[in-house]
């Protein structure tokens, strides 16, 4: 069901953990839906993401997309990271089963949530936080 790349990133996730002195932290998803991604970043004065780590509660695809997303934005500028799409994450993983595409959306949103947190701290206005997209069947929100 999963590609070799997905299995590799699931079995050997890159950048798992926390950053003690992170200046950007974002969390998306909820336990009822079955996946939560939390992303920590260390962004320097040049707006380069020097370090990024994640913690994820979720399925194999959720862990693999988190891992891949961190790989794709590490060392990039904030502006570059904001251009990361869920499609790019899916492609980098050699595809995901249809019912798992939402995991890649969550990964994109986790990156944006962390950067939103960074902007908030800096007093920079933004429009990065989206509401739940209603991708899962168990969410108690009405869509």
């Amino acid at each position: 069901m999963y590609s070799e790349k997905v299995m590799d990133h699931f079995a050997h996730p890159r950048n798992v953990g926390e950053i003690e002195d992170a200046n950007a932290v974002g969390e998306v998803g909820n336990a009822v839906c079955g996946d939560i991604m939390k992303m920590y970043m260390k962004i320097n004065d040049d707006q380069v993401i020097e370090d990024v780590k994640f913690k994820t509660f979720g399925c194999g695809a959720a862990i693999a997309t988190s891992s891949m997303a961190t790989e794709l934005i590490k060392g990039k500028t904030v502006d570059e990271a904001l251009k990361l799409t869920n499609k790019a994450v899916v492609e980098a993983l050699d595809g995901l089963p249809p019912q798992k595409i939402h995991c890649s959306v969550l990964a994109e949103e986790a990156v944006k949530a962390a950067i939103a947190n960074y902007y908030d701290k800096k007093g920079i206005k933004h429009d990065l936080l989206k509401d739940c997209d209603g991708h899962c069947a168990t969410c108690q929100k009405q869509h």
Partner: protein
Amino acid sequence: MEDRFVYADNAATTKTSPEVLQAMLPYFGEGYGNPSSLHQKGREAKKAITEAREKIAMLLGDKPNEIYFTSCGSESDNWAIKGAAHAWSGRGKHIVSTKIEHHAVLHSLEALEKEGFEVTYLDVDGDGRVTPEQVAAAVRDDTILVECMFANNEVGTIEPIKELTAAVKAKNPKTLVFTDAVQAVGNIPVNVADLGVDMLALSGHKIHTPKGIGVLYIKTGVRILNLVDGGGQERGKRGGTENVAYIVGLAKALETAVGGLDENRRVAAMRDRLIDGILEKIPYARLNGPREGRLPGNVNISFEFIEGESLLLLLDMAGICASTGSACSSTSLEPSHVLVSIGVPVELAHGSLRLSISRDTTDEDVDYILEKLPPIVQRLRDMSPLYEEVKKNQK
């Protein structure tokens, strides 16, 4: 402990046993006759299925002409429910069932609801059980059918089918009682005469035959619509040339299973060792389903802060095959309706693990699971933002 392969998903399917395969093999070769043929090849095949039918009837406590061979448990479920509903719709359109049935039952009932039948889905308690009183209370004058599974496939709860049947018949003698006994047969004693049910479904591949054979028991005098009109096989109710090899295999499998019911005490002891061992070694875990009145091979435990599909993938890498009620492992992205019905919070349903063992399981397999599972759960917890908060609160 050395790496090994442990198959702990016997509620999904079992490994075909060597003796079943041996019994079947002649009918893939020289025993190719059509049981309806009058010549020697036909007679040979006819003899094989007649003997198989007699053996199965004896083991289930019914008469040979009450056994109808089908292709699987789902077919038996569909036939019993739709066949009875359509045969008796003139008398009433009300059916009683429970919220924790197999999808073959639930989706059959939903199809009937679209046709105008009314279905009452009974709640179960925290152990997954219905009471005979509860079922009887739901039965009305226009209730034509009561369906309740004999044992639950996810949490292993054994339902009081005998008492339930008696209670239903006392309330309305005309109401038919059907039990989906797919998970029960071979694992606990099942005797249809003793139970008093009108219909019972079973499946071969849960008791060590290959996939592709099931039975619907229909008590003499109980009328349901024909499933397949054809050449008169299965007393005209389910036409189609008989699946001779599989019928022979099923008889062999049932003989071994029923003859080995004592073996289930050993399986139940391994189950209890697994449950106790897991709950002792892993904090923030809870058993789903009852301690007593549980299938001998069923273990279902939820782990907080982690998700079941990733747990299954890691167990698979360690050589252990298991199952989960997590939404993330289903295409519908909905968590197990059974776990939700017994009151397991959705978050914990996501983190559920079902280990279903069988007589093929060994003590070494149990040791291996108990060794491999705790560090795998811990590994996922260390990755989980939910566990992070717990650890911080502990400090």
